[in-house]
Protein backbone atom coordinates (compact mmCIF):
# COMPACT_ATOMS: atom_id res chain seq x y z
CA UNK A 1 0.00 0.00 0.00
CA UNK A 2 1.50 3.30 -1.09
CA UNK A 3 1.86 5.69 1.75
CA UNK A 4 1.11 9.35 1.05
CA UNK A 5 1.29 11.03 4.42
CA UNK A 6 3.06 10.03 7.61
CA UNK A 7 3.16 11.58 11.09
CA UNK A 8 5.92 10.19 13.26
CA UNK A 9 5.58 10.97 17.00
CA UNK A 10 4.44 14.51 16.31
CA UNK A 11 3.88 17.06 19.06
CA UNK A 12 2.06 20.32 18.52
CA UNK A 13 2.26 23.39 20.73
CA UNK A 14 0.09 26.43 20.09
CA UNK A 15 0.84 29.42 22.25
CA UNK A 16 1.80 27.92 25.59
CA UNK A 17 -0.54 24.97 25.25
CA UNK A 18 0.48 21.42 24.32
CA UNK A 19 -2.30 20.21 22.03
CA UNK A 20 -1.00 16.69 21.54
CA UNK A 21 2.25 14.75 21.54
CA UNK A 22 3.54 11.41 20.34
CA UNK A 23 0.96 11.33 17.56
CA UNK A 24 1.77 8.89 14.77
CA UNK A 25 -0.42 8.17 11.80
CA UNK A 26 -0.12 6.93 8.24
CA UNK A 27 -2.41 7.76 5.37
CA UNK A 28 -2.12 5.58 2.27
CA UNK A 29 -3.72 5.71 -1.17
CA UNK A 30 -7.48 5.23 -1.07
CA UNK A 31 -7.66 5.86 2.66
CA UNK A 32 -9.56 8.44 4.62
CA UNK A 33 -9.07 9.54 8.19
CA UNK A 34 -11.73 11.45 10.08
CA UNK A 35 -10.37 13.70 12.82
CA UNK A 36 -13.11 14.27 15.37
CA UNK A 37 -13.31 15.93 18.71
CA UNK A 38 -14.50 19.09 20.42
CA UNK A 39 -13.53 22.63 19.46
CA UNK A 40 -9.94 23.40 20.34
CA UNK A 41 -8.86 19.76 20.40
CA UNK A 42 -6.27 20.46 17.71
CA UNK A 43 -8.05 19.23 14.56
CA UNK A 44 -7.19 22.32 12.54
CA UNK A 45 -3.64 22.38 13.88
CA UNK A 46 -3.16 18.78 12.79
CA UNK A 47 -4.44 19.68 9.31
CA UNK A 48 -2.06 22.64 9.16
CA UNK A 49 0.81 20.44 10.28
CA UNK A 50 -0.06 17.99 7.51
CA UNK A 51 -0.13 20.89 5.02
CA UNK A 52 3.28 22.10 6.13
CA UNK A 53 1.87 25.41 7.34
CA UNK A 54 2.91 24.66 10.92
CA UNK A 55 6.11 23.05 12.05
CA UNK A 56 5.82 20.23 14.57
CA UNK A 57 7.33 20.98 17.99
CA UNK A 58 8.71 17.45 17.90
CA UNK A 59 8.59 14.54 15.47
CA UNK A 60 8.37 14.58 11.70
CA UNK A 61 5.66 15.01 9.09
CA UNK A 62 6.35 13.42 5.70
CA UNK A 63 4.34 14.16 2.57
CA UNK A 64 5.04 12.02 -0.48
CA UNK A 65 2.71 13.87 -2.82
CA UNK A 66 1.10 17.25 -3.41
CA UNK A 67 -1.61 18.46 -1.03
CA UNK A 68 -4.78 20.42 -1.55
CA UNK A 69 -6.13 22.27 1.47
CA UNK A 70 -9.52 23.65 2.37
CA UNK A 71 -9.90 25.66 5.56
CA UNK A 72 -12.07 28.50 6.79
CA UNK A 73 -10.67 30.89 4.14
CA UNK A 74 -11.86 30.17 0.61
CA UNK A 75 -8.85 31.86 -1.07
CA UNK A 76 -11.05 32.88 -4.02
CA UNK A 77 -10.76 36.51 -5.13
CA UNK A 78 -14.08 38.11 -4.12
CA UNK A 79 -14.28 40.51 -7.07
CA UNK A 80 -13.90 37.77 -9.70
CA UNK A 81 -16.61 35.53 -11.15
CA UNK A 82 -16.28 32.08 -9.59
CA UNK A 83 -15.06 30.50 -12.80
CA UNK A 84 -12.20 32.99 -13.20
CA UNK A 85 -11.27 32.71 -9.53
CA UNK A 86 -10.97 28.94 -9.98
CA UNK A 87 -9.07 29.41 -13.25
CA UNK A 88 -6.43 31.38 -11.37
CA UNK A 89 -5.69 28.41 -9.10
CA UNK A 90 -5.79 26.08 -12.11
CA UNK A 91 -2.99 28.16 -13.65
CA UNK A 92 -1.04 28.10 -10.39
CA UNK A 93 -1.50 24.31 -10.23
CA UNK A 94 -0.76 24.06 -13.98
CA UNK A 95 -3.86 21.96 -14.65
CA UNK A 96 -5.99 22.59 -17.74
CA UNK A 97 -9.48 24.06 -17.99
CA UNK A 98 -11.12 20.65 -18.22
CA UNK A 99 -10.10 19.92 -14.64
CA UNK A 100 -11.95 23.08 -13.60
CA UNK A 101 -14.96 22.06 -15.71
CA UNK A 102 -15.09 18.69 -14.01
CA UNK A 103 -14.69 20.21 -10.56
CA UNK A 104 -17.48 22.72 -11.23
CA UNK A 105 -19.72 19.88 -12.39
CA UNK A 106 -18.82 17.76 -9.34
CA UNK A 107 -19.90 20.55 -7.00
CA UNK A 108 -22.91 21.54 -9.19
CA UNK A 109 -21.60 25.09 -9.54
CA UNK A 110 -22.24 25.58 -13.26
CA UNK A 111 -25.18 28.01 -12.67
CA UNK A 112 -22.94 30.11 -10.41
CA UNK A 113 -19.79 30.24 -12.52
CA UNK A 114 -20.43 33.83 -13.69
CA UNK A 115 -21.38 35.11 -10.24
CA UNK A 116 -18.73 37.14 -8.40
CA UNK A 117 -17.37 35.24 -5.41
CA UNK A 118 -18.36 38.12 -3.11
CA UNK A 119 -22.04 37.49 -3.97
CA UNK A 120 -21.96 33.80 -3.05
CA UNK A 121 -23.43 32.50 0.19
CA UNK A 122 -21.24 30.78 2.78
CA UNK A 123 -22.18 27.32 1.57
CA UNK A 124 -21.77 28.24 -2.08
CA UNK A 125 -18.32 29.67 -1.37
CA UNK A 126 -17.43 26.47 0.46
CA UNK A 127 -18.50 24.52 -2.62
CA UNK A 128 -16.28 26.81 -4.70
CA UNK A 129 -13.34 26.12 -2.41
CA UNK A 130 -14.07 22.41 -2.67
CA UNK A 131 -14.06 22.73 -6.47
CA UNK A 132 -10.62 24.33 -6.15
CA UNK A 133 -9.44 21.27 -4.21
CA UNK A 134 -10.93 18.86 -6.75
CA UNK A 135 -9.47 20.75 -9.73
CA UNK A 136 -5.98 20.84 -8.22
CA UNK A 137 -5.48 17.16 -8.94
CA UNK A 138 -3.45 16.78 -5.74
CA UNK A 139 -3.48 13.22 -4.33
CA UNK A 140 -3.69 14.34 -0.69
CA UNK A 141 -6.80 16.24 0.35
CA UNK A 142 -6.68 18.08 3.65
CA UNK A 143 -10.21 19.13 4.48
CA UNK A 144 -10.81 21.27 7.54
CA UNK A 145 -14.54 21.44 8.24
CA UNK A 146 -15.41 21.29 4.52
CA UNK A 147 -19.13 20.86 5.14
CA UNK A 148 -19.60 24.00 7.27
CA UNK A 149 -22.42 26.02 5.78
CA UNK A 150 -23.23 23.37 3.20
CA UNK A 151 -26.80 22.22 2.75
CA UNK A 152 -27.94 18.59 2.53
CA UNK A 153 -27.47 18.36 -1.22
CA UNK A 154 -24.01 19.94 -1.16
CA UNK A 155 -22.91 17.53 1.55
CA UNK A 156 -24.02 14.68 -0.70
CA UNK A 157 -21.85 16.11 -3.48
CA UNK A 158 -18.94 16.43 -1.04
CA UNK A 159 -19.28 12.81 0.09
CA UNK A 160 -19.45 11.66 -3.53
CA UNK A 161 -16.37 13.72 -4.43
CA UNK A 162 -14.42 12.21 -1.54
CA UNK A 163 -15.45 8.70 -2.59
CA UNK A 164 -14.42 9.37 -6.20
CA UNK A 165 -11.09 10.79 -5.06
CA UNK A 166 -10.37 7.71 -2.95
CA UNK A 167 -11.37 5.42 -5.78
CA UNK A 168 -8.77 7.23 -7.91
CA UNK A 169 -6.04 6.48 -5.41
CA UNK A 170 -6.23 9.71 -3.43
CA UNK A 171 -6.17 10.07 0.32
CA UNK A 172 -8.30 12.31 2.52
CA UNK A 173 -7.60 13.78 5.93
CA UNK A 174 -10.85 15.24 7.17
CA UNK A 175 -11.48 17.34 10.25
CA UNK A 176 -15.12 17.63 11.17
CA UNK A 177 -16.99 17.84 14.43
CA UNK A 178 -19.96 16.02 12.97
CA UNK A 179 -20.25 12.86 10.89
CA UNK A 180 -20.52 13.25 7.13
CA UNK A 181 -21.64 9.65 6.77
CA UNK A 182 -18.50 8.57 4.92
CA UNK A 183 -18.13 4.85 4.35
CA UNK A 184 -15.06 2.86 5.38
CA UNK A 185 -13.33 5.68 7.20
CA UNK A 186 -10.78 5.48 10.01
CA UNK A 187 -11.38 7.74 12.98
CA UNK A 188 -9.09 9.62 15.29
CA UNK A 189 -10.73 11.16 18.34
CA UNK A 190 -8.64 14.22 19.11
CA UNK A 191 -10.54 14.81 22.32
CA UNK A 192 -9.12 11.56 23.72
CA UNK A 193 -5.52 12.64 23.04
CA UNK A 194 -5.46 15.63 25.33
Amino acid at each position, binding site marked *: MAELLRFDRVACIRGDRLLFEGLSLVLARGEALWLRGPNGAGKSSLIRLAAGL*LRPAAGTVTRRERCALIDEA*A*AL*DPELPLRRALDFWAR*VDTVDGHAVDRAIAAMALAPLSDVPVAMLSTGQRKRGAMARVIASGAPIWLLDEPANGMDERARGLLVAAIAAHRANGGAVLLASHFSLGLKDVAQLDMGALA
Partner: protein
Amino acid sequence: MTALIALFWRDLRRAWGSGALWIPVVFFLLVATAFPFAVGPDAPLLAKTGGGMLWVAALLAALLPIDRLVRPDRDAGVLDQLAVRGFADELIAAVKIAAHAIGFGLPLLIALLPAAALLAQDGARVATIAAGLALAIPALAALAVLSAALTANLKGGSAIGGLLILPLAVPLLIFGAGMLDPSGRGAAKLLAAVSLLLTVIGPFAAGAALRGLRE
Protein backbone atom coordinates in the same frame (compact mmCIF):
# COMPACT_ATOMS: atom_id res chain seq x y z
CA MET B 1 6.84 29.56 -14.15
CA THR B 2 3.27 29.82 -15.45
CA ALA B 3 2.22 29.84 -11.82
CA LEU B 4 4.44 32.82 -11.04
CA ILE B 5 3.19 34.70 -14.10
CA ALA B 6 -0.39 33.99 -13.03
CA LEU B 7 0.48 35.34 -9.59
CA PHE B 8 2.09 38.46 -11.04
CA TRP B 9 -0.93 39.24 -13.22
CA ARG B 10 -3.28 38.64 -10.32
CA ASP B 11 -1.45 41.19 -8.20
CA LEU B 12 -1.38 43.68 -11.06
CA ARG B 13 -5.05 43.15 -11.85
CA ARG B 14 -6.04 43.58 -8.23
CA ALA B 15 -3.91 46.70 -7.92
CA TRP B 16 -5.34 48.43 -10.98
CA GLY B 17 -8.77 46.86 -10.98
CA SER B 18 -9.71 48.01 -7.53
CA GLY B 19 -8.75 51.58 -8.31
CA ALA B 20 -7.10 51.87 -4.92
CA LEU B 21 -3.67 52.05 -6.47
CA TRP B 22 -4.58 55.34 -8.11
CA ILE B 23 -4.74 56.86 -4.63
CA PRO B 24 -0.94 57.22 -4.39
CA VAL B 25 -0.91 58.84 -7.80
CA VAL B 26 -3.68 61.24 -6.87
CA PHE B 27 -1.83 61.97 -3.62
CA PHE B 28 1.33 62.68 -5.60
CA LEU B 29 -0.55 65.13 -7.84
CA LEU B 30 -2.25 66.74 -4.83
CA VAL B 31 1.10 67.50 -3.22
CA ALA B 32 2.35 68.98 -6.47
CA THR B 33 -0.81 71.10 -6.66
CA ALA B 34 -0.70 72.24 -3.05
CA PHE B 35 3.00 73.11 -2.94
CA PRO B 36 2.77 76.25 -5.17
CA PHE B 37 -0.10 77.51 -2.99
CA ALA B 38 2.12 77.17 0.06
CA VAL B 39 5.33 78.75 -1.26
CA GLY B 40 3.77 81.17 -3.76
CA PRO B 41 3.70 81.14 -7.57
CA ASP B 42 7.29 82.25 -7.97
CA ALA B 43 8.53 80.19 -10.94
CA PRO B 44 12.29 80.31 -10.21
CA LEU B 45 11.71 79.33 -6.56
CA LEU B 46 9.37 76.51 -7.60
CA ALA B 47 11.84 75.29 -10.19
CA LYS B 48 14.60 75.23 -7.55
CA THR B 49 12.66 73.49 -4.75
CA GLY B 50 10.04 71.55 -6.76
CA GLY B 51 12.30 68.63 -7.65
CA GLY B 52 12.98 67.78 -4.02
CA MET B 53 9.29 68.17 -3.24
CA LEU B 54 8.42 65.68 -5.97
CA TRP B 55 10.82 63.19 -4.41
CA VAL B 56 9.24 63.60 -0.98
CA ALA B 57 5.79 63.20 -2.53
CA ALA B 58 6.85 60.05 -4.40
CA LEU B 59 8.31 58.56 -1.23
CA LEU B 60 5.18 59.27 0.81
CA ALA B 61 2.96 58.03 -2.03
CA ALA B 62 4.86 54.73 -1.90
CA LEU B 63 3.84 54.34 1.76
CA LEU B 64 0.10 54.63 1.10
CA PRO B 65 -0.79 51.22 -0.34
CA ILE B 66 1.05 49.20 2.33
CA ASP B 67 -2.05 47.76 3.99
CA ARG B 68 -3.31 46.41 0.65
CA LEU B 69 -0.23 44.48 -0.36
CA VAL B 70 -0.16 41.49 1.99
CA ARG B 71 -2.96 41.61 4.53
CA PRO B 72 -5.88 40.85 2.13
CA ASP B 73 -4.01 37.83 0.78
CA ARG B 74 -3.29 36.60 4.28
CA ASP B 75 -6.91 37.06 5.37
CA ALA B 76 -8.26 35.32 2.26
CA GLY B 77 -5.97 32.33 2.81
CA VAL B 78 -4.16 32.93 -0.49
CA LEU B 79 -0.74 32.96 1.18
CA ASP B 80 -1.51 29.66 2.93
CA GLN B 81 -2.64 28.11 -0.33
CA LEU B 82 0.59 29.17 -2.03
CA ALA B 83 2.65 27.80 0.87
CA VAL B 84 0.80 24.46 0.67
CA ARG B 85 1.80 24.30 -2.98
CA GLY B 86 5.42 24.56 -1.93
CA PHE B 87 6.25 28.02 -3.28
CA ALA B 88 9.15 29.58 -1.39
CA ASP B 89 8.09 32.65 0.56
CA GLU B 90 11.01 34.55 -1.00
CA LEU B 91 9.62 33.79 -4.45
CA ILE B 92 6.14 35.01 -3.48
CA ALA B 93 7.69 38.16 -2.04
CA ALA B 94 9.75 38.70 -5.22
CA VAL B 95 6.64 38.37 -7.40
CA LYS B 96 4.73 40.77 -5.15
CA ILE B 97 7.60 43.28 -5.32
CA ALA B 98 7.77 43.03 -9.12
CA ALA B 99 4.00 43.46 -9.47
CA HIS B 100 3.99 46.39 -7.07
CA ALA B 101 6.94 48.05 -8.83
CA ILE B 102 5.06 47.93 -12.14
CA GLY B 103 1.60 48.56 -10.71
CA PHE B 104 2.68 51.53 -8.64
CA GLY B 105 5.75 52.73 -10.54
CA LEU B 106 4.25 53.12 -14.00
CA PRO B 107 1.31 55.34 -12.94
CA LEU B 108 3.70 57.36 -10.77
CA LEU B 109 6.05 58.03 -13.69
CA ILE B 110 3.08 59.09 -15.82
CA ALA B 111 1.79 61.35 -13.04
CA LEU B 112 5.25 62.89 -12.83
CA LEU B 113 4.67 64.80 -16.07
CA PRO B 114 1.71 66.95 -14.93
CA ALA B 115 3.17 67.19 -11.43
CA ALA B 116 6.49 68.48 -12.77
CA ALA B 117 4.68 70.99 -14.96
CA LEU B 118 2.84 72.32 -11.90
CA LEU B 119 6.18 72.89 -10.19
CA ALA B 120 7.80 74.67 -13.17
CA GLN B 121 10.37 71.95 -13.83
CA ASP B 122 12.07 72.16 -17.24
CA GLY B 123 12.57 69.21 -19.55
CA ALA B 124 16.06 68.33 -18.37
CA ARG B 125 15.03 68.27 -14.72
CA VAL B 126 11.92 66.19 -15.49
CA ALA B 127 14.15 63.69 -17.29
CA THR B 128 16.52 63.58 -14.29
CA ILE B 129 13.66 63.07 -11.82
CA ALA B 130 12.09 60.40 -14.02
CA ALA B 131 15.40 58.55 -14.33
CA GLY B 132 15.94 58.78 -10.57
CA LEU B 133 12.41 57.55 -9.77
CA ALA B 134 12.78 54.70 -12.25
CA LEU B 135 15.95 53.68 -10.40
CA ALA B 136 14.31 54.00 -6.99
CA ILE B 137 10.94 52.36 -7.74
CA PRO B 138 12.12 48.72 -7.36
CA ALA B 139 13.61 49.61 -3.98
CA LEU B 140 10.48 51.49 -2.90
CA ALA B 141 8.37 48.49 -3.94
CA ALA B 142 10.65 46.13 -2.02
CA LEU B 143 10.38 48.28 1.10
CA ALA B 144 6.60 48.56 0.74
CA VAL B 145 6.13 44.79 0.44
CA LEU B 146 8.57 44.20 3.30
CA SER B 147 6.76 46.48 5.70
CA ALA B 148 3.39 45.17 4.49
CA ALA B 149 4.52 41.65 5.36
CA LEU B 150 5.95 42.74 8.70
CA THR B 151 2.78 44.54 9.77
CA ALA B 152 0.09 42.28 8.25
CA ASN B 153 -0.70 40.84 11.69
CA LEU B 154 -0.95 44.23 13.41
CA LYS B 155 -3.95 46.49 13.78
CA GLY B 156 -3.25 49.87 12.22
CA GLY B 157 -0.27 48.26 10.58
CA SER B 158 0.03 50.74 7.74
CA ALA B 159 0.99 53.60 10.07
CA ILE B 160 3.69 51.49 11.70
CA GLY B 161 4.67 50.26 8.27
CA GLY B 162 5.34 53.83 7.21
CA LEU B 163 7.56 54.40 10.21
CA LEU B 164 9.46 51.21 9.36
CA ILE B 165 10.06 52.19 5.75
CA LEU B 166 10.98 55.81 6.17
CA PRO B 167 14.49 55.45 7.67
CA LEU B 168 15.40 52.81 5.09
CA ALA B 169 14.12 55.01 2.27
CA VAL B 170 16.06 58.12 3.32
CA PRO B 171 19.17 57.17 1.26
CA LEU B 172 16.95 56.92 -1.80
CA LEU B 173 15.63 60.38 -1.08
CA ILE B 174 19.08 61.88 -0.50
CA PHE B 175 20.67 60.48 -3.65
CA GLY B 176 17.53 60.81 -5.77
CA ALA B 177 17.07 64.46 -4.97
CA GLY B 178 20.86 64.80 -5.08
CA MET B 179 20.77 63.98 -8.79
CA LEU B 180 19.10 67.36 -9.32
CA ASP B 181 22.06 69.22 -7.78
CA PRO B 182 24.49 70.24 -10.56
CA SER B 183 27.42 69.39 -8.28
CA GLY B 184 26.02 65.97 -7.32
CA ARG B 185 27.46 63.93 -10.17
CA GLY B 186 27.92 60.65 -8.35
CA ALA B 187 24.37 60.72 -6.98
CA ALA B 188 22.90 58.60 -9.76
CA LYS B 189 25.42 55.83 -9.16
CA LEU B 190 24.89 55.94 -5.41
CA LEU B 191 21.12 55.90 -5.93
CA ALA B 192 21.48 52.87 -8.21
CA ALA B 193 23.68 51.15 -5.62
CA VAL B 194 21.28 51.79 -2.73
CA SER B 195 18.32 50.75 -4.87
CA LEU B 196 20.06 47.55 -5.92
CA LEU B 197 20.90 46.70 -2.34
CA LEU B 198 17.34 47.23 -1.09
CA THR B 199 15.84 45.42 -4.09
CA VAL B 200 18.06 42.39 -3.51
CA ILE B 201 17.50 42.26 0.25
CA GLY B 202 13.75 42.89 -0.14
CA PRO B 203 12.52 39.44 -1.26
CA PHE B 204 14.54 37.65 1.43
CA ALA B 205 13.48 39.94 4.25
CA ALA B 206 9.85 40.03 3.09
CA GLY B 207 9.91 36.25 2.57
CA ALA B 208 11.04 35.74 6.14
CA ALA B 209 8.27 38.07 7.30
CA LEU B 210 5.68 36.09 5.28
CA ARG B 211 6.91 32.90 6.91
CA GLY B 212 6.54 34.57 10.28
CA LEU B 213 2.86 35.29 9.56
CA ARG B 214 2.09 31.57 9.71
CA GLU B 215 3.55 30.91 13.13
